[in-house]
């Protein structure tokens, strides 16, 4: 745990320093440069606080581990136990976003969303960092076991896990896949999306495209917060996707017919239904298709996730088109 914590702390400081640097580079006046650094510092402090608290509290709610009837008020002491499997990644990410939002609100005069847009690639980098950090979190970021002697049993494809009794095995490094998706989005956000689109474009796209591949990754993970066989974080991914698509659709297409306007949401709901069916098929208890292995079902899931991506992108473009582009400079509204 300590290696993990140190790595995450050092990596977070570095990423927020880069965020500050980018904000400072975007302005010329020394006074604004100073304010940019203040924003980054406050964003770091608030994010660390809110991220940790929400991740732990969200985890406690999702695992339903606080049992006041059994433990009385002493149940709250469990909130101070920061095990990997008692923390919610998505609640932590929400805390980080709230922290950055609050920092921007306190240090800027105009819309905070320009600041959130500027933070989007750094948020993706944070996701990448924390997902890679799961490589040091025992078995937390892993998926199915590899057969003994598999030629694919090496990092970064797989991680070695040690069980009670010292038995070692290799499992798929799902956390590395999650990190790769996040890194890819960070690169796109840095090099393709800068200064394009309306305010909020970068941030909402980042939310969408960070949550999207995680639908697949959460399904592949063998650890996590479960409600019986349901991956709680996968449900949160789906909710984030629904929320972002709804935001785009509500804010645009008012001149379109009902079917055309809400088609992306319809496609999303169809895809989510398909994903539920696939999850049942992977579990094998309700649905069985001869010859379909878990890997094959995950390939099908990839295709479904891609369809959600296309539908979401259509909604995003429509929303972006229907307003005159506002450059998303991090300090423009200051």
């Amino acid at each position, binding site marked *: 745990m300590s290696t993990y914590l140190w790595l995450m702390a050092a990596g977070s400081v570095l990423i927020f320093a880069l965020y500050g640097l980018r904000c400072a580079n975007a302005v010329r006046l020394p006074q604004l440069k100073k304010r940019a650094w203040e924003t980054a510092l406050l964003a770091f402090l608030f994010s660390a606080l809110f991220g940790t608290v929400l991740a732990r509290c969200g985890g406690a709610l999702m*695992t339903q581990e606080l*049992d006041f009837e059994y433990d009385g008020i002493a149940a709250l002491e469990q909130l101070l136990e920061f095990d990997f499997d008692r923390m919610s990644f998505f609640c932590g990410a929400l805390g980080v976003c709230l922290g950055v939002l609050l920092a921007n609100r306190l240090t800027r005069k105009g819309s905070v969303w320009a600041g959130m847009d500027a933070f989007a690639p750094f948020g993706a980098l944070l996701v990448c960092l924390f997902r890679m950090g799961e490589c040091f979190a025992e078995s937390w970021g892993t998926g199915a076991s590899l057969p003994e002697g598999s030629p694919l049993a090496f990092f970064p494809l797989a991680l070695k896990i040690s069980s009670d009794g010292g*038995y070692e095995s290799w499992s798929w490094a799902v956390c590395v896949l999650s990190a790769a998706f996040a890194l890819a989005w960070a690169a796109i956000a840095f090099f393709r999306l800068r200064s394009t689109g309306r305010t909020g474009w970068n941030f909402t796209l980042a939310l969408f495209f960070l949550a999207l591949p995680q639908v697949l990754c959460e399904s592949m993970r063998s650890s*996590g917060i479960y409600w019986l066989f349901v991956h709680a974080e996968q449900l949160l991914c789906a909710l984030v996707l629904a929320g972002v698509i709804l935001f785009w659709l509500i804010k645009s297409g008012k001149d379109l017919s009902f079917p055309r306007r809400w088609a992306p949401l319809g496609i999303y709901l169809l895809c989510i239904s398909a994903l539920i069916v696939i999850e049942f098929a992977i579990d094998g208890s309700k649905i069985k298709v001869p010859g379909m292995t878990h890997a094959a079902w995950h390939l099908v899931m990839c295709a479904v996730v891609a369809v959600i991506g296309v539908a979401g992108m259509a909604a995003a473009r429509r929303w972006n088109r229907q307003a005159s582009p506002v450059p998303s400079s991090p300090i423009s509204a200051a």
Partner: protein
Amino acid sequence: MRAVLSVLLALLLLLPCAALGEAAPAAEPTLFSMPLPIDFSGGMVPQEEFYKDDWTYEDPTISVHITFRDDLSEYMTGYKGKKQSGAWIVDIRIGDASQLRTLAAVSFNKKDAKAVEQMAGWVNAVIAFNGDFAARRTEGLIIRQGETFKNKLKGALDVLAIDEDGDFHVFAKPKKGEIGDSIDGKKIINAFYFGPILVENGEVPAKFTTFRYLHEDDYYARLGICQVGPLHYKMIITTMQDVTVGMKLTDFARLCKDEGAITAFNLDGGYSAAMIFRGVMVNDTKSAEPRDVPDIVYFASAWNGEDIE
């Protein structure tokens, strides 16, 4: 005349012996007590020479005999389909209680799951089964290999505790503080939290502690762990394939009782149910791929080939 009388007398003396020979049950193997450490290390490697046939393993410390029963129509109450039910009955005797062991996929306070075959291979299990999935519950009692991982009983499910002598003790919906770390001065080595109790004192309880995922009235794959005598156990696992169906819970309890169980406890069944012998899964549920599980219960050999004269 004296010779004839002698022969007749000898025959009279031999008659009871012959009768005894006919009536005597199959000799129980004499097993040596060679304790294994109470930790998460495995057992000794099963030796090929002790596999008597495809379904039997007998070495100086453990005997495992597997039979398949397909004559189970009397245990199919109310079933109107065309499929049959079958059950694997595994008769297990061990020389020492420490040969009944448990292992987690990663740890008993973690939710990770792995294939039963893989875990059985790590610990050189002669025979292994899935456990109780307790690591994924927020409440319950998890004592494994003498170590307590969780003791948060809320009167929801039944508990099976196995003491240091390998004897079973069952508790119906125990509440907070009802189970400590020992019973009658005997340390609890393993405790399972699932149930229900299928047989207690040789009788099927009038009522079961059930919960939704037991599918109590469905014809379902089930796994029962039974004690039939001192260091003598039976594991019973019903099939659920394309051509067979499992059993209702009440019928399964009756089967356990009729197989001689003094105490029997239901472990996780359905698509988790797994029995591994000689490194392969013997039973077959309908899953395309066997479900990974967080823990196993297994029986190990303690014979190291050197210590017994």
